[in-house]
């Protein structure tokens, strides 16, 4: 799939917003990754923030140091220089344990039923039905079966947006709540549009709620081993594999989080977009082997 030329627009006098495509695709995300990497490497004077997103990116700048038009031209020239060159990504694959259909998100969704499309069913029941799954269990199995790409980090500190690495017709899609909730348990696994997310902090949210992970992913205190380098765990380009866990396993993991011994399974991996697109099922199988092999 080839992408149309990017669309550039100023966000006031301090931002340039670049839409790589109006619809989501791995191609658009990879184009954004390669462009934002190139911008970072150039160390352009006046650029203060470089923010890749799912199918877009934005740059924040100081117009006293670089003229908006000059920066716009620079970004456009980077786009044309890179062309459609495929990017191989040296990244990591991470196992995230999830207690699906847990009591805390269930309690929360019941409190906000009047804001939901289908007040008589749970978020999981609704998601399973509109995506054509026979049962909640089959739906959960599909959510946990294939890896997900972290295609954006943000909304609030450290929250990953994740794109399911399967053919488009197999991707899980659900609408957001009709009106956002004012509360979401910390570390809820949410889903809206085609994206899953992990709510890094407790707070407002509009994504359907499927489960909860015991693994902190944002911690200013940096208490756990995998947060020692930085308080935010996820980076765009990370690959996530969910692993269902039960209540007993969840409670044990939570006890480890509390005594500071909890850790995540993380393995380095090289991701080649073209190879993946040729055969996602085979490629995902190899990724999973990398995660669980020695």
């Amino acid at each position, binding site marked *: 799939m080839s992408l149309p030329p990017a669309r550039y*627009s*100023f*966000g*006031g*006098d*301090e*931002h340039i*917003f670049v*839409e790589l495509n*109006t*619809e*989501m*695709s791995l191609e658009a995300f990879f184009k954004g990754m390669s462009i934002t990497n190139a911008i970072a490497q150039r160390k352009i004077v006046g650029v*203060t*923030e*470089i*923010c*890749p*997103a*799912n*199918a*877009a*990116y*934005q740059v*924040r700048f100081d*117009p*006293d140091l670089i003229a*908006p*038009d000059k920066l716009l031209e620079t970004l456009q020239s980077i786009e044309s220089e890179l062309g459609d060159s495929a990017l191989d990504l040296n990244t990591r694959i991470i196992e995230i344990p999830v207690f699906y259909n847990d009591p805390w998100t269930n309690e929360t969704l019941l409190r906000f039923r009047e804001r939901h499309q289908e007040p008589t069913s749970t978020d999981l029941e609704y998601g399973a039905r509109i995506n054509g799954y026979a049962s909640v269990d089959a739906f959960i199995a599909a959510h946990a079966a294939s890896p997900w790409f972290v295609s*954006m*980090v*943000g*909304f*609030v*500190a*450290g*929250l990953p*947006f994740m*794109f399911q690495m399967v053919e*488009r017709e197999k991707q899980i*899609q659900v*609408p*957001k709540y009709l009106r956002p909730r004012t509360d979401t348990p910390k570390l809820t696994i949410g889903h*809206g*549009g*085609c*994206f899953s997310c992990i709510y*890094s*902090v407790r*707070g407002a949210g509009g994504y359907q709620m499927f489960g909860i992970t015991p693994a902190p992913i*944002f911690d*200013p205190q940096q208490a756990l081993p995998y947060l020692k380098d930085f*308080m*935010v765990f996820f*980076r*765009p380009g990370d690959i996530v594999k969910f692993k269902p866990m039960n209540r007993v396993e969840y409670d044990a993991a939570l006890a480890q989080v509390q005594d500071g011994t909890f850790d995540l399974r993380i393995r380095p991996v090289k991701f080649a977009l073209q190879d993946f697109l040729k055969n996602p099922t085979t490629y995902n199988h190899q990724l999973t082997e990398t995660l669980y092999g020695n």
Partner: protein
Amino acid sequence: MAIKVLQAGLATTVQDAGRTGYYHLGIPLSGALDQYSFRAANLLLGNPEDAAALEMTMLGPKLEFTQDALIALTGANLPAKLDGVDIANYEVVAVKAGSVLSFGYLKDGVRGYLAVAGGIDVPVVLGSRSTYILGAMGGFCGRKLQAGDVLPVGVATGPSHLGRKLPEQLKPVFPKDVHVRVLPGLYFHWLTEASGKSFFDDTWRVGPEADRIGYRFKGGRALEFAPRERPFGAGSDPSNIVDAGYPVGSIQVPGGLEPIMLHRDAISGGGYAMIGTVISADMDLVAQLQPNFRTQFVAVDMAQALAARAQSKQRLIDLRATLKT
């Protein structure tokens, strides 16, 4: 040297010039919402311009000083009393050890700044002392002040500027009816022509949901997005986009109903179409808008945005020149 918090006020936080370089991970700019008033307080005292200060919101705190100190109050007009005696804003005032600073009812603006010679000395987190409440980081324990907190104050190094006042023409004014300049763009072209016009024609009012994250506006006509095929991954509402980054100052209109303008504690991205961005020169003005104030959005182009930016920068240069030494 420390400040004891006897009463916290409505939403009092430690803020400075803000935190740069982490927006791509969802950690926003933060910092004083009205940067001009914040900087004026520090410059009056002879502090570094970006020293951490307290941002007070509508209802001031009650504070006890453990040692002698010099303070300056700027921004919103929160009438201050020191041990029950009125003291002036925009003036360096001496506080004796054991004295209590309190505030009366807000007269205008929303956010007042209290700077102390030496600055509020909370730990620097990712390059800033600013509080980011959603992430529970920075500032004092990552949250609004509470009664019982004890705030450390740094050591003042420069000469005393006791009694120094800010000239009248350098004080900001906080009008009730404002024009807020907006550079249309981003997904503005998704609006129908009529809605693209009515957004700027209608008079809006600041809603009750107006905080450091964003300001919600009410009272204008609902905005319509032109029919278009829903892009894959965007969600089902006509105002939904594939989740993307939000510029600071950008205006989104979930469901077409109420425009929300993001300020310095912005959520860094999401799935609602943005229709334009408030220019940098008007961010301080928005910070001082009270609920129900009338707001007219005015479309400008980049040349006008940059001219306005140069003007507000000149004001800051004048401020620095006046308060030099």
